[in-house]
């Protein structure tokens, strides 16, 4: 018996996408398996690890804790959408490289989304605020300190650009 499909229309990284999805397809599975936007990672599939974080209407959410049909009519930004239009890295992404803020890279897309979400609302966060913002994202490589350093570095570089 085939499952009923539901039509959706979602803006993903600035591009309007339409699809027919079964109700139980999670947003992250739709992004990865149907749209082939594999930058967003799947970790625990129950909202603990943060690897699947994406922005929904500009705010970080967990893409494993939403069904794709719930994104109907909304705007989604994945890690692919953080890069510059020419494909080069954003300031935050570059800061992650400079600060050695990743090793295996599994948590990185979720970390970038969480950190970008913070910088969008708080351009000059304290170390404590950065820790709070990435508190829902697990990293088993770095010990987190370089990630905090990278977000601080990005905040300083971005505020220097504004001046």
């Amino acid at each position, binding site marked *: 018996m085939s499952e009923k499909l*539901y039509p959706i229309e979602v803006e993903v990284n600035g591009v309007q996408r339409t699809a027919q999805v079964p*109700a*139980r397809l999670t947003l992250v599975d739709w992004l990865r398996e149907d749209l082939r936007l594999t930058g967003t990672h799947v970790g625990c*599939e129950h909202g603990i690890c943060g690897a699947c974080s994406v922005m929904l209407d500009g705010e970080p959410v*967990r893409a494993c804790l939403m069904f794709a049909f*719930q994104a109907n*009519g909304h705007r989604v930004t994945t890690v692919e959408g953080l890069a510059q239009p020419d494909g080069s890295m954003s300031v935050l992404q570059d800061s992650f490289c400079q600060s050695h803020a990743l090793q295996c890279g599994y948590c990185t897309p979720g970390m970038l989304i969480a950190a970008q*979400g913070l910088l969008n609302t708080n351009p000059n966060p304290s170390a404590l605020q950065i820790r709070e913002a990435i*508190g*829902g994202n697990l990293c088993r490589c770095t010990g987190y300190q370089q990630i905090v350093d990278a977000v601080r570095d990005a905040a300083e570089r971005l505020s220097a650009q504004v001046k």
Partner: protein
Amino acid sequence: MKSAPFEFVRAASISEACEVLKREGDTVKVVAGGQSLIPMMAMRLVRPALLLDINEIAALKFVAADEDVVRIGACTRQSAVERDEALASRVPLLRQALTWVGHVQTRNRGTIGGSIVHADPCAELPLVAQILGARMVLRGTARARTVAADAFFTGPMMTVTDPNECLEEVHWPVWGERRAGSAFAEISIRHGDFAMVCAAAQLALGDDGRCVRAAFGLGGVGQTPLAFPRLAQRLVGTRIEDEAVKSVAHDAAAESGPGSDLFATAAYRRHLAGVLAARVIRAAHEQARTKA
């Protein structure tokens, strides 16, 4: 870790949602933020035949301040409440509790009403509702009714909500006293995890520094969040001397009924209950005392 198949309907209004609930009975599950329900579906602990999405009902997303009560629409995001400065001064326990609820990403999606109707006995918002005596407005097809927190929570993940009702609003009492203070504390394995034990208190002082009103409670140590109005009453008229604080905290821990699991024994939870109850009462007092 994928949900079992189900069908989906998006309600455009609360009355439409109630019609669906009435028609479909208890094969339907309402999803708001889904931050607890969707993991339970992924683990197949919950297998609804139909998921009723209320996220697009704009009328369920609001914060409205009346004189002695703040009304919050059931589908208002936790992060919106957390950021609301006016609300933080009128019902300060909400922001104090919300910093312990999950993480930024889950609070951006999770709702006030969802947390209340989910009624996890160790959850933060149900505890705040219990100690402040919040009132829940339940909408059915025929009528709406209002239920106070002490009658609302009936057991772990259980409330008096009928299968054909949907939570519409939560009314949070505002304390008018000038010298009021509040505090929330929690012990969990990692920040953002489920609370092992959590505690909340709110006190008001008169000009002479004596307590004129007190409320406190504990989460994670009973079938529902627990408030202790009779013990809190013992603080009224005192200057919140440490002996009185220790005594009511001790008695609250003794009255609570924690269970054991992999993470903590009942005895350890009871110990934490006493420590945290005293801690939040002292912190709420300190905050009230420093207000001129």
